[in-house]
């Protein structure tokens, strides 16, 4: 019996095996298909990309563009869940997702994801520009086809290369305003790109048994936990200068530099802590601490950049 079916009254006629399956999901199940937590990150980083772009943008067009980028990201998450439903069912972390839980049928998720993908790309093209729309379409393609269908099941470097899909939103946001990309928007891409491996591998270390059961060649499954710890440490150290780069190259201010340096050092320290603690509950706690800190790291850096961009528009700044 599916998890969703357990919500029903056991004496319901819906339990008759002869009976055709009826669409079961609620609006919330469809919302969950969009991976809302990933969407938050996409909205935040794309917003920073937009606000750091030179030139004005109508706030309504800016808001609508952001919405299109967020829906495009959500659609790619939905298509990812459609394709990976069978392996999601094998892992505790993902078994409650709407498709393995039985709330939404795979065909419904496919139709939902495709409709939103095409709709978001067309909408962004019509309201912003077709360069940004093409970039959004490429990002959806990269995440669904290159990462989900190919890299994820083929190589331990899956999330390193696939991480590019999650790193594109600041560039798309920038492009929605200017129609082109810049060095600064590329630096934000690079920041998320280098941040992705330690972030995901920290979680994969704890969940490696589940990944092994599902046959996904994550680094801890293929190379072992200690090799993964070393890779996490190396990427975290590399992240310090990469995080500071926008300020060092005069694209960001002092606030960003302080936050990037401080959080970069803290993240590298936690990566070192994880490298040292290899056994038992301590190792597990160190992995979760690094995972949580990595989320905070990204929000802090982009948040600092956002504050710097908005500072001149605050009331007390305008009074000067």
């Amino acid at each position, binding site marked *: 019996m599916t998890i969703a079916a357990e919500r*029903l009254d056991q004496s319901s006629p819906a339990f008759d095996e002869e*009976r*055709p399956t009826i669409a079961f999901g*609620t*609006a919330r199940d469809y919302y969950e298909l969009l991976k809302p937590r990933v969407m938050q990150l996409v909205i935040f980083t794309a917003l920073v990309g937009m606000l750091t772009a030179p030139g004005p943008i109508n706030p*309504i067009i800016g808001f*609508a563009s952001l919405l299109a980028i967020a829906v495009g990201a959500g659609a790619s998450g939905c298509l990812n869940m459609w394709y990976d439903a069978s392996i999601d069912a094998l892992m505790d972390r993902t078994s409650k997702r709407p498709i393995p839980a039985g709330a939404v049928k795979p065909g419904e998720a496919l139709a939902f994801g495709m409709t939103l993908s095409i709709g978001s790309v067309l909408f962004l093209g019509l309201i912003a520009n077709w360069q940004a729309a093409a970039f959004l379409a490429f990002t959806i393609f990269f995440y669904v086809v290159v990462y989900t269908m190919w890299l994820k099941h083929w190589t331990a470097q899956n999330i390193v290369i696939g991480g590019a899909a999650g790193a594109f939103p600041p560039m798309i946001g920038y492009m929605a305003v200017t129609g082109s990309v810049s060095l600064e928007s590329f630096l934000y891409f690079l920041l998320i790109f280098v941040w992705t491996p330690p972030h995901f591998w920290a979680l994969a270390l704890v969940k490696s048994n589940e990944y092994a059961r599902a046959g996904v060649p994550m680094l801890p499954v293929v190379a072992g936990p200690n090799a993964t710890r070393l890779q996490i440490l190396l990427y975290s150290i590399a992240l310090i200068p990469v995080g500071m780069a926008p300020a060092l190259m005069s694209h960001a201010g002092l606030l960003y530099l302080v936050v990037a340096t401080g959080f970069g050092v803290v993240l590298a320290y936690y990566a070192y802590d994880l490298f040292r603690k290899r056994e038992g509950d301590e190792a597990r706690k160190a992995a979760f601490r690094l995972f949580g800190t990595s989320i905070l790291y990204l929000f802090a850096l982009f948040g600092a950049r956002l504050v710097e961009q908005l500072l001149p528009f605050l009331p007390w700044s305008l009074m000067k």
Partner: protein
Amino acid sequence: MSVYPQPPELTEEEVQRRNARSRALGLFLGALVILFFIVTIAKLGGNVMNRPI
């Protein structure tokens, strides 16, 4: 009698869920109409009043 298989009679919970889905879809489509209208006005800008009388 129809040659096509008849859909099963829905349970009360299934009807409730279908109604909830329909309401959500209605709200989504309504929001989309409003969004398209506002974005169109924003794109037109000052030209919104520029029409032959």
